[in-house]
């Protein structure tokens, strides 16, 4: 059970860390540190089992249909990487406490850091290929988020994007590779894949698999030609660079190569591709590192170079080299993350990372200096430090390699050359920063950091020395455990000793060291004073070409969009209609159009007359909508009424009721909106232009064809026999199981109540959206003034039409009689609503209609009395109606859970009530109360928000007038300081 906890702990910790308050720096880092420490302890405790059994695993069915399980599998290699990830994660969390500024939103940082840790542990402990790729991509995402942590900085955003594009893209390629690998191996299980290495290497797909997997590994581990993203990733906070971009994430690529070494290595193609890329990266990285001006840039290129070294070792196809690769991975993680942390301290305490400005710091920061010098010495491969041991192993492998003569000569040369460069850049750190002329012109006076900031570095440097002095004792056992699965179980003989006698590797080391000192002496002065921003003799700049490619793709996409996409609404809608019609026509053309022989309903004169009126009104509405909006609205209402009557005629009383009340509120809604639309000018010149005429003719044709199509379609459907549907079920069960005779209502509140719940949610959301949109509404200037009709009556001061809304209009006679009547109507209307609501379960009515009726009753009050008058006397708060309604509906539904039934199951109680006797009380009634409340609230909210615009606009205008008048404004301004002064006293 402890095994999955290794993954679970960091992810759970990440969620908790994200919830901490924004500036809880100590709490967040302490928490992250404890989580990482706990994970480390868990990992360490698993060592005896891993050591004894070789591999331990925990399994959970994941995609059983595909035969893929979620397997957390820890063998020696996975264990070693887990220890690195968790252990260094712990140190970095601790270090970041002091590195991050109090202003940074640290919970986000530590949440990402822990999530990354979990993802990285997921990669190294993955027991099947799919799982590995999944976590692989997750690490890319968190790396993106961490590089872009200071997202207000442009370089951070660009660096984050580049890293994500390269590593995430590589991850996709890797996914394809892994899928193919799974096909070639016959399973996605890691155990199976590793055991079938020979079969995989023989498989026809092997070259493709190798290429795809290598692209994934090389992008992640910043191998040539994908190395360019890593220096850009240095825009991340330094703890991130120390953790992700030196110790862990960039090691995922070489981890993958080690992981799949038994399955894929041992072929000519592997040797050429992996060894070639590794050698190129080794040299290129070291060369560039020498010329960096930015301290973190130097470390980044040096990381690239060391990753190249590991890749090269893995590419040599020899078990001993693979062991050396594992060893160097561990060593590099320790010395490079300690160097990054030291670089962070230098940056933090001096304010710059510019190597031309950093010199002579040893006096100011002797302890940090000593630590950094030891770490750089390890990086350069100085004896008695861990870097020396793995470097010697590498030199030995390079020298004793049995290969093509050219390679046999070139490889030792490359190795020595890279070693020389390494000495140069190590000297730039160790000597250049800490010795030489006393520092001047630094942003801050340099000094030692707080004691605790150095502790993580001290621990790491101590490890470097301990491993370097007594390798066999400190690391021997661990290295053997870690390397055994890489070489496929049988370790080659090797000796972790400091002194192997005077041999070729030692000579190469000495050559490199002496060469490095000489180069530094001749080059150092130039580098120290002016520095070079780019390394010389490099024809291709990866970053530049990446950016050019991205810009090119961007431009091409934009050009394509310009060509095939329009932002204009009319063509979009026209295409929609045309395509829909064409689709229907195509179907008809294929199957033919036949009328069915369903029994016809006899036509009556009344219906024909009804629809001649309805159709005429519809056409009239279409005709009038441009210049005569109000008339169009009236004719639209006529059409709506015809629809309503049609519903009544064809046995749909519920629909008719709903249509009727919705028609009322819609008309009010449109009337409220009409006020804000601009005047239409008759006889515009453009009205008669040939282009306009053409467009109209085209639209008319489209409309007529589509309308004819609709007619045909509905006629065909009306004459064909009705399809089998589930309707009989509802009819049959409404009374016995729903407890109501009105099937429609029973369906809405019982059978299909989940659907209704969704609908009222949409209704409430739409109303709130309307309200929110109107809060920011800025009315057009000419619409704010009193409408012409009201201004006309200005002369007749006797009427109150002057400013009906500001004044308590209803009190002074405006619509007085209707107002009194409407007020009398309010209780009556509410009673009708109650009646409609209560009978809803058995007769036409229900929550929808009742809600709309109540809303209309209130709107009526507003119409005759004015908003100010009503609101002085009545608080409606429609938003609360919506909230209460939704809560009631959900609570009713959830009540079914209490009884052990699924959500929204209806139960009917039969309580005995005095006078009324025994009545049926279905829980659906309460649901209907919720529906009622939401419908009332939403309708009121929409209409009132719209109605309030007039008042608000008038108020805003009044405020503007006050501000413009000089007297008022000076008083206001003068009053302000006085008030403040009074406060002070």
């Amino acid at each position, binding site marked *: 059970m402890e095994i999955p906890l290794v993954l679970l702990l960091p992810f759970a910790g990440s969620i908790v860390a994200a919830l901490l308050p924004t500036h809880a720096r100590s709490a967040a880092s302490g928490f992250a540190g404890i989580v990482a420490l706990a994970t480390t302890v868990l990992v360490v405790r698993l060592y005896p089992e891993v050591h004894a059994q070789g591999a331990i695993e925990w399994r959970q069915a994941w995609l059983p249909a595909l035969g893929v399980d979620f397997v957390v599998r820890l063998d020696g290699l996975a264990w070693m990487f887990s220890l690195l990830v968790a252990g260094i994660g712990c140190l970095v969390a601790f270090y970041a406490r002091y590195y991050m500024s109090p202003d940074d939103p640290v919970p986000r940082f530590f949440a990402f850091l822990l999530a990354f840790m979990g993802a990285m542990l997921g990669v190294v402990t993955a027991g099947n290929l799919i799982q590995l790729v999944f976590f692989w991509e997750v690490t890319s995402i968190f790396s993106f988020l961490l590089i872009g942590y200071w997202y207000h900085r442009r370089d951070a955003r660009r660096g984050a994007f580049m890293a994500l594009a390269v590593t995430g893209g590589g991850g996709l390629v890797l996914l394809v590779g892994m899928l193919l690998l799974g096909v070639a191996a016959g399973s996605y299980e890691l155990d199976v894949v590793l055991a079938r290495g020979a079969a995989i290497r023989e498989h026809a797909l092997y070259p493709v698999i190798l290429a795809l997997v290598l692209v994934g590994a090389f992008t992640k581990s910043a191998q040539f030609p994908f190395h360019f993203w890593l220096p850009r990733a240095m825009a991340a906070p330094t703890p991130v660079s120390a953790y992700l971009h030196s110790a862990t994430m960039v090691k995922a690529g070489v981890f993958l190569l080690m992981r799949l070494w038994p399955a894929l290595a041992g072929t000519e193609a592997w040797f050429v591709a992996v060894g070639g890329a590794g050698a190129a990266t080794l040299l290129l990285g070291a060369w560039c590192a020498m010329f960096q001006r930015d301290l973190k840039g130097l470390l980044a290129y040096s990381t690239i170079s060391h990753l190249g070294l590991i890749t090269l070792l893995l590419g040599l196809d020899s078990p001993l080299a693979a062991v050396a690769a594992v060893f160097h991975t561990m060593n590099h993680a320790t010395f490079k993350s300690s160097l990054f942390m030291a670089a962070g301290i230098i940056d933090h305490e001096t304010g710059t990372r510019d190597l031309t400005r950093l010199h002579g710091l040893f006096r100011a920061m002797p302890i940090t200096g000593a630590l950094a010098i030891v770490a750089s010495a390890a990086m350069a491969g100085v004896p008695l430090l861990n870097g020396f041991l793995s470097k010697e192993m590498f030199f030995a492998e390079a020298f004793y390699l049995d290969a093509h003569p050219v390679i046999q000569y070139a490889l030792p040369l490359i190795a020595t050359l890279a070693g020389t460069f390494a000495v140069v850049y190590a000297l730039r750190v160790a000597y250049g920063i800490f010795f030489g002329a006393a520092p001047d012109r630094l942003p801050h006076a340099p000094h030692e950091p707080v004691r605790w900031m150095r502790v993580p570095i001290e621990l790491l440097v101590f490890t470097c020395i301990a491993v370097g002095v007594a390798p066999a004792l400190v690391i021997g056992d661990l290295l053997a455990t870690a390397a055994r699965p890489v070489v496929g179980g049988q370790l080659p003989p090797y000796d972790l000793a400091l002194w192997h006698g005077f041999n070729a590797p030692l000579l190469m080391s000495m050559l490199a060291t002496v060469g490095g000192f000489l180069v530094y002496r001749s080059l150092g002065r130039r580098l120290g004073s002016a520095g070079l921003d780019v390394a010389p003799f490099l024809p291709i700049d990866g970053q530049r070409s990446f950016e050019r490619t991205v810009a090119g793709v961007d431009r091409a996409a934009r050009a394509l969009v310009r060509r095939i996409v329009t932002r*204009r609404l009319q063509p979009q809608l026209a295409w929609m209609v045309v395509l829909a019609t064409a689709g229907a026509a195509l179907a008809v053309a294929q199957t033919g159009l036949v009328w069915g022989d369903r029994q016809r309903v006899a036509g009556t004169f009344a219906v024909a007359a009804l629809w001649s009126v309805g159709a005429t009104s519809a056409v009239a*509405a279409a005709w009038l*909508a441009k210049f005569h909006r109000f008339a169009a609205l009236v004719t639209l209402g006529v059409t709506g009424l015809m629809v309503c009557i049609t519903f009544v005629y064809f046995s749909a009383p519920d629909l008719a009721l709903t249509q009727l009340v919705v028609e009322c509120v819609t008309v009010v809604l449109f009337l409220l909106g009409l006020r804000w639309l601009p005047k239409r000018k008759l006889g515009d010149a453009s009205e008669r232009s040939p282009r306009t005429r053409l467009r109209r003719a085209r639209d008319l044709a489209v409309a007529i064809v589509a309308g004819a199509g609709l007619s045909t379609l509905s006629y065909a459907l009306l004459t064909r026999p009705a399809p089998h549907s589930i*309707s009989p079920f509802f009819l049959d069960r409404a009374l016995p199981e729903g407890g109501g005779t009105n099937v429609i209502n029973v369906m809405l509140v019982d059978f299909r109540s989940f659907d209704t719940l969704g609908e009222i949610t949409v209704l409430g959301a739409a109303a709130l959206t309307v309200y929110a949109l109107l809060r920011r509404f800025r009315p057009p200037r000419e619409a704010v003034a009193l409408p012409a009709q009201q201004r006309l009556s200005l002369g007749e001061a006797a009427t109150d039409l002057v400013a009906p809304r500001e004044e308590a209009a209803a009190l002074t006679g405006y619509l007085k009689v209707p107002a009194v009547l409407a007020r009398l109507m309010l209780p009556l209307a509410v009673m009708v609503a109650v009646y409609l609501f209560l009978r809803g379960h058995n007769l036409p009515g229900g929550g929808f209609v009742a809600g709309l009726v109540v809303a209309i009753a209130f709107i009526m009050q507003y119409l005759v009395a004015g908003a100010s008058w009503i609101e002085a006397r009545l608080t409606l708060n429609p938003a609360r109606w919506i909230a209460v309604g939704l809560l009631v509906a959900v609570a009713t539904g959830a009540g079914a859970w209490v009884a052990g039934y699924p959500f929204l199951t209806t139960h009917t109680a039969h309580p005995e009530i005095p006078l009324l006797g025994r009545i049926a009380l279905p829980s659906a009634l309460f649901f209907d109360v919720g529906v009622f409340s939401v419908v009332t609230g939403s309708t009121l909210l929409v209409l009132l928000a719209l109605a309030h615009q007039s008042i608000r606009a008038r108020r805003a205008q009044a405020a503007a007038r006050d501000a413009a008048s000089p007297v008022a404004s000076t008083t206001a301004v003068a009053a302000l300081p006085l008030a403040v002064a009074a406060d002070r006293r």
Partner: protein
Amino acid sequence: MEIVLSAAIGILGASGIWLVLRARTFQVLMGLSLVSYAVNLFLFSMGSLSIGQEPIVTPGIPADLAHYTDPMVQALVLTAIVIGFATTALFLVVLLALRGLADNDHVDGKDEGA
């Protein structure tokens, strides 16, 4: 009767589509209302055109489609009517906001003739 109803649906639909393709927001809004009438009627007619057969179960009459009209399309259309109101309101407010921002009532916010 079928002819009358399908012709009505066609005419409502055509008027609505014509308006939806216009350049002024109010026209589009009216058009959408007309189209939704047409669509509601269309959906409604998917059931059975029955007269005097309300889907209100009466004791003594067997509860099947021979004696009652199809209740399902009615339940669907009922929700469609109410949702239609909500979307109409939303669209109206969007067009008002557009009017406030762009200072005209063209659907694209750019006044360039009809």
